């Protein structure tokens, strides 16, 4: 249902003691109109509602009024009464604050319109964007009524540790003989996608699986280094499912959903069993049993690993399971195919439109359900640790078709990456978090020294100990260099912002990660163990380097390959970089989005990591969703589809979706402007990094929202795409992805502006304590911000809130001092 609203004028006399707001809502269809209006007169000493026209259904054609219109009529009546309540409350607040005493007529107008806007946007706080929008736009806007979207998390009843078991016992099943009658589409072949497609294939569904890379094995899960968490407690150090659950919620700064996170911890145990059975060669100790390491933010050893290539080994495991199903003919694999849009029939996801990247062909694929496993949106920043092809388009396309997008402003910025070296740089490389176990992070105390280093006049090794500022050890003595990722990242930025950065790039952004102390300490220990109680300095350093090489050799080599500097001799240069997106498509407990039949798994959804993800938890979530959650919850949904039969791709919905895709491609190809796609993508990246990056403030976010708007308009006027649409055309692929990132970037800024608190990776400068630590606001912001798409301008997106309830965990502050 589309509701239109008009509002008349905001009137007031020159003495500012009386203002009247007129509100009118209407909904129309086939000559049937539903109307409702009210007017509110506010005075300095009170307020008064005039009833105006009452809500009414008008049948202009004198036909019988269908029941759904009567239903809508009720909705509109409800909505109008919501608006009245909102205006009343806001007016009361204004009167108490006495701000209005100095209001001019224009300010009165702005206030009233903004309040009206807020009310229409379901109680969204007054923001600059709503005010501006109301000032700018004509009097008619299309909005979706809140009643059409029901943000029900569908978390099962019962104690936390029984929810998933009970739910599984009660869910509907599809009998084996019915499964071959059902088609499922899986988009993406990372850990979540490959494992989901393999599992669904094993169960007997007809699966079609798509990836844009030349092989499913290339998905970016492959680049994960450190490990995968699981509550196996093989090390007997007190780990349990509850502890993994607790650590994950706390690490996420209390912004994730309890039920989902507990389930994640619960199935983590099966993941390791499953992977070992598939032949994933995890690291083992000399007794032949699995080895574990520890990661940031926890006090147990629960991380399973395969050297520094855990992601690769797990992905190849899932890929082997997928390959088996492809070989058996149960999964049809489409390499080098990109999803262009989702097709909805009767409100349900019933297929997708794809582009064959080799031939440019646009194809229709139907299915009874669609599973989106397409990863995160870090590439909105242009420079990130994501792969070049990682993109948000599949997630954004379903968002545009009705799936809400949750917490877009929650992005993880990883503290230890190799700094930017120049304007031609295409991506950033991560140096594993494990290095912070041995390295000490510092910058020169004196700005002059930092400058001399940047100019190449001074070497870091020439700076004496007392002239160095080990700022993490100084600020966080208890955790030192091992504070969580978000804290370490902000601290580095703070030092560089005030002029202590040591990298000779455009922004001077870089700090040192120094292994000299560790080399000496370990060298002495090794010598002592060998019986040499008084080793010479050379001997100590030699032994120390050997120790470091054994532990981090491959990382040091990788660093040297990229920077041409020897980290055994001179400290590493590092700086934070965009790494992971906690936000994503809103899903319920079943991982279903607000589009029925459209499921979202892995990094693409928002569900498990709150405002900050702990190390080694991304791999865990991808496989948990794909192997152990989606196969069950999808069956529950598909049980109602056993009589549907195969879905034709000749329907109007498919034809329309295909034409829409083709016309978007034509539009892009025909711009024939002057600048390349990368030119615009880099500009977007700069805005995002500077204003929606590690730390954010109201002014910066407001200006980013406007700048992205301008940039998007420029992109659609001036981008140049060489070649044709009916061939392999990498520039066209990029353009289609960047077009979506432009809209997503703006929504991230809108979300960050709305969230007036600091939590996890989202740091608002206005909300910090005297020592620069985050100030979370559990009274007003303990909710998931789920945004509904209205149009390309994210300022018009509608906010829905899912309040978070904590029944099994007591909320506390995160403190690392």
């Amino acid at each position, binding site marked *: 249902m589309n509701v239109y609203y008009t509002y008349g004028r905001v009137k007031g006399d020159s003495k500012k003691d009386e203002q009247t707001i007129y509100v009118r809502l209407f909904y129309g269809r086939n000559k049937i109109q539903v109307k409702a209006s009210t007017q509110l007169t506010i005075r300095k000493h009170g307020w008064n509602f005039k009833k105006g026209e009452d809500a009414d259904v008008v049948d202009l054609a004198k036909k019988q009024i269908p029941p759904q219109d009567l239903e809508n009529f009720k909705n509109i009546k409800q909505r109008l009464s919501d608006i009245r309540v909102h205006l009343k409350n806001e007016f009361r607040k204004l009167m108490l604050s006495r701000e209005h005493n100095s209001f001019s007529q224009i300010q009165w107008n702005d206030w009233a319109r903004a309040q009206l806007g807020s009310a229409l946007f379901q109680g969204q706080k007054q923001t600059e964007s709503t005010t501006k929008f109301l000032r700018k736009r004509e009097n008619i806007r299309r909005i979706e009524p809140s009643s059409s979207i029901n943000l029900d998390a569908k978390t099962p009843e019962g104690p936390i540790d029984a929810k998933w078991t009970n739910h599984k016992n009660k869910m509907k099943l599809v009998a084996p003989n019915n499964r071959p009658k059902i088609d499922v589409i899986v988009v993406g072949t990372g850990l979540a996608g490959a494992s989901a497609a393999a599992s669904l294939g094993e169960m007997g569904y007809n699966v079609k699986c798509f990836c844009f890379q030349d092989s499913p094995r290339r998905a970016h899960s492959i680049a994960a280094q450190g490990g995968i968490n699981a509550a196996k407690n093989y090390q007997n150090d007190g780990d349990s499912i509850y502890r993994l659950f607790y650590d994950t919620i706390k690490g996420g700064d209390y912004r994730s959903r309890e039920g989902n996170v507990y389930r994640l911890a619960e199935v983590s145990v099966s993941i390791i069993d499953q992977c070992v059975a598939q032949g994933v060669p995890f690291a083992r100790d000399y007794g032949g049993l699995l080895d574990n390491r520890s990661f940031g933010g926890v006090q147990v050893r629960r991380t399973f690993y395969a050297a520094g290539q855990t992601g690769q080994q797990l992905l190849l495991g899932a890929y082997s399971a997928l390959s088996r199903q492809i070989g058996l003919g149960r999964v049809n694999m489409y390499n080098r195919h990109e999803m262009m849009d989702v097709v909805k029939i009767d409100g349900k996801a019933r297929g997708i439109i794809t582009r064959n990247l080799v031939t440019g062909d646009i194809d229709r694929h139907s299915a009874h359900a669609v599973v989106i496993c397409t990863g995160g949106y870090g590439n909105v920043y242009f420079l990130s640790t994501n792969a070049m092809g990682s993109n948000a388009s599949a997630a954004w396309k379903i968002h545009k078709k009705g799936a809400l997008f949750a917490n877009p402003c929650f992005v993880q910025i990883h503290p230890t990456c190799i700094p930017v070296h120049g304007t031609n740089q295409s991506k950033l490389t991560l140096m594993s978090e494990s290095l912070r176990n041995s390295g000490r992070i510092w910058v020169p105390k004196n700005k002059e020294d930092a400058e001399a280093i940047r100019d190449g006049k001074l070497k870091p090794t020439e700076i004496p100990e007392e002239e160095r500022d080990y700022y993490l050890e100084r600020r966080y003595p208890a955790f030192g260099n091992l504070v969580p990722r978000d804290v370490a990242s902000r601290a580095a930025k703070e030092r560089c912002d005030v002029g202590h950065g040591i990298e000779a790039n455009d922004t001077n952004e870089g700090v040192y990660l120094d292994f000299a102390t560790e080399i000496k300490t370990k060298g002495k220990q090794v010598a002592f163990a060998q019986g040499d109680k008084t080793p010479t300095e050379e001997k100590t350093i030699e032994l120390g380097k050997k120790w470091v090489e054994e532990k981090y050799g491959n990382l040091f080599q990788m660093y040297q390959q990229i920077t041409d500097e020897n980290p055994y001799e001179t400290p590493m240069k590092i700086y934070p970089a965009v790494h992971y997106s906690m936000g994503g498509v809103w899903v319920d407990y079943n991982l279903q989005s607000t589009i029925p039949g459209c499921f979202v798994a892995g990094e693409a959804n928002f569900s498990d990591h709150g405002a900050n993800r702990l190390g080694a938890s991304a791999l865990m979530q991808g496989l948990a969703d794909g192997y152990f959650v989606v196969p069950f919850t999808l069956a529950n949904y598909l049980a109602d589809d056993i009589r549907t039969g195969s879905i034709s791709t000749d329907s109007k919905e498919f034809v329309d979706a295909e034409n829409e895709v083709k016309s978007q491609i034509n539009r892009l190809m025909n711009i024939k402007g002057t600048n390349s796609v990368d030119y615009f993508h880099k500009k977007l990246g700069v805005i995002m990094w500077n204003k929606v990056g590690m730390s954010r403030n109201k002014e910066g976010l407001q200006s980013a929202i406007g700048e992205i708007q301008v940039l998007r308009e420029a992109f659609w006027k001036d981008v140049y795409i060489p070649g044709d649409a009916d061939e*392999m055309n990498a520039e066209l692929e990029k353009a289609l992805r960047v077009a979506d990132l432009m809209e997503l970037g703006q929504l991230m800024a809108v979300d960050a502006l709305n969230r007036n608190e600091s939590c996890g990776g989202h740091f608002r400068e206005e909300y910090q304590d005297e020592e620069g630590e985050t100030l979370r606001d559990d009274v007003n912001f303990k909710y998931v911000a789920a945004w509904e798409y209205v149009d390309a301008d994210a300022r018009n997106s509608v906010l829905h809130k899912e309040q978070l309830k904590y029944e099994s965990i007591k909320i506390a502050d995160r403190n690392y001092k």
Partner: protein
Amino acid sequence: MAAKNIDIILKVWRQKNTNAKGKIETYELSEVSTDSSFLEMLDQLNEKLIGEKETPITFDHDCREGICGSCSLYIDGRAHGPQTGNTTCQLHMRSFNNGDTIYIEPWRSKAFPIIKDLMVDRSAFDRIQQSGGFVSVNTSGNTLDANAIPITKDDADKSFEAATCIGCGACVASCKNSSAMLFVGAKVSQYSLLPQGQVEAKNRVQNMVRQMDKEGFGNCTNTGACEVECPKGISLENIARMNRDFLLSNISSDK
């Protein structure tokens, strides 16, 4: 150490599509930072070509940190360029000098048809994997506990080393016979070294070798170029292990 800018001449294989005739084109590129990676240099060239309304060069790439196996260039007659132990995306321009002429070609093998310019179709590798590169275990959540079968560290490490193959195809491109035996050997070894892989070991090696032959890859003549050019240093031992397994399965198979 310090970055500087160099001017280079590039000779690049251009081919519009699989069926078109290709040829080497020459491009001059100036102001290339030695801190740039090889692929960033190609980005720079493409930006220039786009600016001149020319068609940019198509090449495969994705993670740009040496792990996904997408990038696949034959540079100055060597897979992944002049250095060993790295992929093209890890190669940096400081390996080249001002005024250098650099030849860039796609992987050359009948089993890897060219899609466009420097991009080839490596789906033959996928099909080999589909023929047997797996352990037939369904997702259940009720498999044996992960620690139920101890595996000696040595075997686990060897299996892991074989499993680090990134499937880039440099072994095929470097081999005078276009043999894929290093790739297949690594896959067979990963499973044959682990107890989980034993049950299907005979069928696996038979099926994978059969598929490899069907795809048109050549045979191994023990030259060892593949091992030298493999960015992950996969050892020739894996080919020996595969041959052993293959022979064994031939003489002991019931089929």
